[in-house]
């Protein structure tokens, strides 16, 4: 039964591509599949919190971190699927896309969700790699969805940079297998657990090299600086709901693969090595994002750079370890929810203004008051303003960091302040001011508001109350990673 969790989106993709001739059937199939996956993932997460890791089949196993990731994918996937229905209808009404594009969209989005769930639940590192590569393949055409030169350039860069990165990650993955090498032709099924239990047999120098390759490889997919070059282009050119998935959950999928290798490396060479690397890459990401956001001219790219910053904060947290790692996992959840909500709100702005350039978007609060309020709330939440959870996770990460990395932690806090100013400047320019004269103040579609509103509401609730099963999963995940 639990396997439906993984395969339902893939089945929905085939259903959409082969059998369906009506748009409404595609919409129902996609939303229904997402709903079933969400219910099932919460049920699995509760079981994992109560009974420990759940093995579904020899190749699928869900541990605490996997359960958190899976539930996040399912939750964001549900709201994004729902939002997509009304977003694509509007784009069809405007004549931007036709029926065949809609079919392509639902097919690829379902495949994308299925590949992410597969990566989150796979018990084998190679299968995880295959799944993450599948996310690249399923999203390449979604990034070039509007078939414009800029979108083509973004999709090409995405395909090339991620493929090279993932191949290097694959090479690193293979190097980890030297710990259980039994000779040519004697390959055995290897799980994350067996790599972990054999980590002491790993040559420390090989382990260090392997981690560097994996960090470059999966770090490219995470969007850590300096491997981030594909991310702002891809996130800004894809349809908004896909940007929400790319930014909200795909980055986490790659990050968790990286963390699983970190756990193995830590046993082979000690904590210091991987932690230092993560801190350096994390700090660099925060630094670059902060300064680029100050001069950003496109609001979707602004959100993309914010994702780079947040991935940097998470890398910093995992680099510090302990309380920092706990806060980083929680940060991952908050970021997923809030960033997805921000992208979906940006979608509403795009539908109204038909531009992603900040200079063309003025007076959002008067033209789209609810969307504007949601965007401002999302901005405050993502930059770590109280009472949102990201405020707490940032405080925890930095306070944990100050003990051993005083200078870097203080510098990171300063950079976050710079980023807040840059973000505020851009958001202020969009939200306030005179609305364009030709822009009428029409009623906002409630269907397009439900998803971002729900995601922000859930993020706010989780800021005050973390359900018991989730806190058990968090504690269990921190003890391992």
């Amino acid at each position, binding site marked *: 039964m639990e396997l439906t969790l993984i395969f339902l989106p893939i089945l929905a993709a085939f259903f959409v591509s082969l059998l369906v001739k009506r748009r409404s059937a595609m919409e129902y199939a996609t939303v229904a599949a997402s709903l079933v996956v969400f219910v099932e993932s919460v049920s699995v997460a509760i079981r994992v919190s109560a009974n420990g890791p759940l093995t579904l089949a020899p190749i699928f196993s869900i541990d605490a971190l996997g359960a958190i990731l899976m539930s996040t994918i399912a939750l964001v996937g549900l709201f994004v699927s729902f939002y997509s229905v009304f977003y694509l209808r509007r784009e069809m009404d405007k004549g931007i896309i036709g029926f065949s594009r809609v079919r392509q969209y639902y097919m690829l989005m379902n495949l994308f969700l299925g590949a992410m769930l597969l990566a989150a639940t796979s018990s084998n590192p190679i*299968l995880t790699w*295959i799944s993450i590569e599948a996310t690249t*393949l399923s999203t390449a055409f979604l990034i070039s969805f509007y078939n414009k*030169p800029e979108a*083509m350039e973004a999709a090409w860069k995405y395909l090339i940079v991620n493929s090279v990165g993932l191949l290097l990650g694959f090479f690193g993955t293979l190097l980890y297998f030297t710990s259980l090498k039994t000779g*040519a032709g004697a*390959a055995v099924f290897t799980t994350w657990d067996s790599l972990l239990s054999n980590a002491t047999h790993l*040559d420390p120098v090989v382990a260090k090299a392997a981690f560097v390759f994996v960090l470059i490889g999966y770090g490219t997919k995470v969007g850590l600086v300096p491997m981030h070059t594909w991310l702002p282009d891809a996130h800004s050119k894809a349809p908004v709901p896909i940007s929400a998935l790319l930014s909200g959950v795909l980055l986490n999928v790659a990050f968790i693969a990286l963390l699983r290798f970190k756990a193995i490396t830590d046993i082979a060479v000690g904590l210091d090595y991987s932690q230092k690397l993560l801190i350096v890459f994390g700090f660099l990401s925060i630094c670059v994002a902060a300064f680029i956001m100050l001069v950003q*001219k496109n609001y979707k790219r602004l959100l993309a750079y914010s994702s780079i910053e947040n991935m940097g904060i998470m890398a910093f947290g995992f680099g510090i370890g302990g309380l920092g790692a706990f806060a980083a996992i929680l940060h991952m959840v908050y970021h997923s929810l809030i960033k997805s909500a921000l992208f979906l709100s940006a979608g509403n702005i795009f539908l109204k203004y038909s531009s992603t350039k900040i200079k063309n978007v003025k007076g959002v609060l008067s033209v789209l008051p609810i969307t504007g309020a949601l965007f401002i709330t999302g901005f405050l939440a993502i930059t770590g303003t109280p009472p949102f959870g990201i405020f707490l996770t940032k405080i925890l990460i930095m306070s944990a960091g100050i003990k051993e990395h005083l200078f870097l932690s203080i510098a990171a806090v300063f950079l976050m302040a710079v980023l807040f100013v840059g973000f505020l400047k851009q958001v202020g320019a969009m939200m306030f001011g005179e609305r364009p004269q030709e822009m009428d103040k029409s009623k906002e579609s409630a269907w397009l508001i439900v998803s971002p509103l729900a995601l922000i509401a859930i993020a706010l609730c989780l800021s005050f109350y973390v359900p018991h099963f989730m806190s058990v999963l968090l504690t269990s995940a921190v003890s391992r990673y």
Partner: protein
Amino acid sequence: MLTTFSQIFLALFFFTIVLLHLVRKNSSIAALYGIQSLVIVILLVGTYFETGDGWSLLIALLTLVVKVILAPAFIFRLLKKHDLKFLVSSYVNVPLTLVIVTMLTAVAHSNLFAPLVQIIPANQQLLSLALSALFISLFLIANRKGALSQIVGILSLENSIVAFALFAGLEQLPILQVGILFDISIWIAIATVFMSMLYRHFGSLDVSEMKNLTE
């Protein structure tokens, strides 16, 4: 694995990657990739003769279909469709390219990477050569302005990793190898479709033409 047999074919494999840096015709690029993949197939068949594992033969057969037949066929069809005879240039000129290729080979054979190539001490020379091939493939991707060269560079990088894994005894279960091959075949199909789309949009496969689009 039979060392002399492996040395000859791995040297041929390495030579194809060096040639990929030098050729100026698109059809030569596709043909060289086909030859390079054929070498990988021969090495996989060699594994079968060494271990007697029937799965190696199946993987060799699938590799033959995907990388030696389908991938070059896709590329040749694309070249014919758009009448793309000549390759766009590289960022670095040929003499300097050869200097860099030599340096990368020297680095792969240096003490810096000794722990990696001593995974199986008896195969140290072979692993060094496979590692050199990996680095030179990476350089191919970075150095060429043409979309086709970048695609073949990535495929060549993947072949280099397969060669390294073969000599380091890091082969995976057949089912996973089939999964990887499936991924690669989808990747090849998508990449060639993208190349066609790029040509339609920009009238060229020169990726440097796209730089002015970056915001």
